């Protein structure tokens, strides 16, 4: 058989690459407008309600490894197909720097397993340079995005509470669930320290928003995907309804190689490999929308070189891949002696925290520029692999049931009883903060390495600055104070300067954004304020790549709002025959 590129016969109005938050929203809005859409996804079909794929309500003993993270990074029952490393699809790092890249190859992408934390960016988040002189302002303001946030809230559903906090805009919320026991303890401790401890904002249906989805039944397993669609994932909530319109052709296992262009430099479609038959194909469309994730979309642009675009597509500025930034992250755990020997009840709740702590500080009075929010975990969770590890570091520190000290470690009935006594008595805090976007944090094409499809791979270069390290130090101080204020004992030793205060590697928080940022100036940005490439009018990027700056928020709600806005702009521009 000759090696050839087979053309799909159909000409589409729009070809979307990637089916996560950005791509799913684009597929929904564009198909509802009556446009013919090709939706390409590099992984297989996925439906959490499919019994072959479902992991919800499985017990640890249904897995021979009891849910350990050997084959899935977040454990056997986690919904994400993929992980930090994918066989045959490497990435590399430059100059000894670190970056970890989490890819989820499946319908819905990383929205299948994410934490559902759905925070709006605030007014300051869009104009941070005006506030502190660092990074860049977005070309749009909160007021531009607010109507789309409103619609996303109502379409998808997010619980929360109206708080009127500066830079933490309220939305159209579903009622939040009542706090768990340890969360009430955090609230009391936090309020003594002057921290706002408020209901979390998660896209989980405490009440439904439409007839196709059921309300949450409190199994605490959103990361496994929900069989009744009681939480948000792009596959269940956006792609599935979009498919019903009949206007969307879904191409799964379609690994896109590059964006195709004509002599005038306009995009004409994409070339892809069908993983099922390993043949090369192309899809033609009037408009190409990239939503493959910030780094994968940048990779596609950089790999789409032509005479018209020798530097990669939409990259005369050289900005594609630059200003890559992930949220900062650091964490600490503790033990709460008061919660030993707890009364048992079903404390699962929703799949995540019921309360959280938004950023409260005034950075003008601190030695780092940007804030962070605090997430928390604890309670009587379902045990899985790792449960009970390290008892020898615990049971020598607290008296036994008879009030007498015990020797650490041990065996037998007395040890067996300790596991019962310590169940549900731990607390964990994690900070998620803003990193300042810098030109010298970037991904680029590795000149020497290709993946198994022959596609040149990404090479990362990323360092933390003092702002991020000092922010992590502040997190550690806060976590320790919170644990102590709760009457608890912080676990292990406090992470110090030698470990950058426990600051995780860049990429670890899986909030990477900024690689195709928007702006008014084509010399310093890739996209205009409607996510449209400055240089290629029929090319759009609707994933986190468009972000000028990540806030101390999770990016998904903003990706959804901006993708909705960009998609309606595409419909409008097609009508006006501008593209």
């Amino acid at each position: 058989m000759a090696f050839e590129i087979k053309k799909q016969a159909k000409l589409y109005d729009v070809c979307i690459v990637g089916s996560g938050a950005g791509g799913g929203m684009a597929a929904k809005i564009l198909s509802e407008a009556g446009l013919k859409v090709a939706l390409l996804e590099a992984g297989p079909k996925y439906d959490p309600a499919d019994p072959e794929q479902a992991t919800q309500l499985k017990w640890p003993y249904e897995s021979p490894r009891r849910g350990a993270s050997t084959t899935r990074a977040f454990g056997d029952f986690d919904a994400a197909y993929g992980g930090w490393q994918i066989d045959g699809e490497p990435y590399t790092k430059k100059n000894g720097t670190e970056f970890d890249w989490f890819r989820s190859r499946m319908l819905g992408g990383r929205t299948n397993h994410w934490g559902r934390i759905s925070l709006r960016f605030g007014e300051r988040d869009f104009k941070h340079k005006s506030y502190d002189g660092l990074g860049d302002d977005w070309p749009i303001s909160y007021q531009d995005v607010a109507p789309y946030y409103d619609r996303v809230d109502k379409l998808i559903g997010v619980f929360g509470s109206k708080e009127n906090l500066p830079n933490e805009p309220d939305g159209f919320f579903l009622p939040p669930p009542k706090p768990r026991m340890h969360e009430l303890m955090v609230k009391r401790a936090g309020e003594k320290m002057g921290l706002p401890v408020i209901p979390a904002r998660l896209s989980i249906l405490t009440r439904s928003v439409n007839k196709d989805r059921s309300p949450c039944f409190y199994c605490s397993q959103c990361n496994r995907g929900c069989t009744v669609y009681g939480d948000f994932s792009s596959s269940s909530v956006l792609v599935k309804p979009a498919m019903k319109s009949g206007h969307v052709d879904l191409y799964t296992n379609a690994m896109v190689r590059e964006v195709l262009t004509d002599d005038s430099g306009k995009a004409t479609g994409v070339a892809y490999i069908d993983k099922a038959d390993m043949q090369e194909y192309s899809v033609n469309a009037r408009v190409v929308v990239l939503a493959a994730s910030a780094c994968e979309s940048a990779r596609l642009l950089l790999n789409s070189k032509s005479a018209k675009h020798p530097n990669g597509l939409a990259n005369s500025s050289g900005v594609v891949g630059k200003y890559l930034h992930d949220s900062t992250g650091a964490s600490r755990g503790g033990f709460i002696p008061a919660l030993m020997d707890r009364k048992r009840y079903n404390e699962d709740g929703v799949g995540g925290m019921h309360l959280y702590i938004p950023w409260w500080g005034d950075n003008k009075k601190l030695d780092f520029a940007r804030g962070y929010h605090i997430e928390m975990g604890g309670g009587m969770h379902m045990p899985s692999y790792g449960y009970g590890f390290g008892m020898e570091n615990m049971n020598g520190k607290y008296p036994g049931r008879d009030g007498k000290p015990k020797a650490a470690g041990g065996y037998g009935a007395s040890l067996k009883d300790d596991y019962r006594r310590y169940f549900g008595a731990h607390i964990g805090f994690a900070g998620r903060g803003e990193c300042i976007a810098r030109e010298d944090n970037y991904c680029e094409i590795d000149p020497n390495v290709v993946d198994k499809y022959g596609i040149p791979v990404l090479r990362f270069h990323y360092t933390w600055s003092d702002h991020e390290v000092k922010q992590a130090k502040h997190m550690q101080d806060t976590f320790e104070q919170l644990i102590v204020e709760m009457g608890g004992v912080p676990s292990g030793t406090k992470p110090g300067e030698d470990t950058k205060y426990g600051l995780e590697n860049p990429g670890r928080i899986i909030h990477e954004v900024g690689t195709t940022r928007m702006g008014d100036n084509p010399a310093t940005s890739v996209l205009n304020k409607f996510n449209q490439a400055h240089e290629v009018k029929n090319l759009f990027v609707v994933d986190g790549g468009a972000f000028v700056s990540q806030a101390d928020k999770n990016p998904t709600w903003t990706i959804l709002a901006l993708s909705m806005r960009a998609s309606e702009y595409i419909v409008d521009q097609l009508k006006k025959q501008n593209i």
Partner: protein
Amino acid sequence: MDRRESLKALALGTLSVGTILSATGCEDKKTTGEKKAGNAQGYGRTPDEAERDKALTEEKFFTPEEMKTITILADIIIPADEHSGSASDAKVPEFIEFIVKDIPEHKLPMRGGLRWLDVQCAKRYNKSFAECSPEQRIAVVDLIAYPEKAAPENSQGVAFFNRMRNLTATGFFTSKIGIKDLGYIGNTPNEWDGVPADVLKQYGYAYDEKTLATCLKIEDRGKIMTWD
């Protein structure tokens, strides 16, 4: 009513979870009898993952002698008591056989640790650990079971016993017997309406008025939300 039917009923959104749970009362016998069809492993594996599971299950790592020692040790660590069965009742040795193949970093420390133990027994009693009397076994275990009291020359044994304790505990408390013993009672459709009143009282807490006014009224759970 089986779990899937319960979920379907929940999906309709009319029945309260309380109704479903009291109407079923058959959680245990139904779920044990029911084997998930189709996917060989029955816990949502991709084809690659199912293949890997199968390969690991067919492979054998520990010798029969090693398995015997693992079983004795596991039951010393988690014996049967008035609440529940022992580690071997919960098939912990089988779990350990699987997990060392799944997470190979356990392989060498486990094999070497078992050998270390046998050598200690041979020096003292001229027998392997398994051949020793229960009293002799406990005498050797006591040398390595208490990290803060153990003699420095036994530190490798302490490291081995810590690993053995961890794997035994995790295998036991993730088993059906162990989860019941631990008293974890979730992983089932529920209506979360806050911490039980007696527990709030025990710790000196109460839901304040603002929280009660803001949070979900559980009776609204089945109603579609409107804002306008």
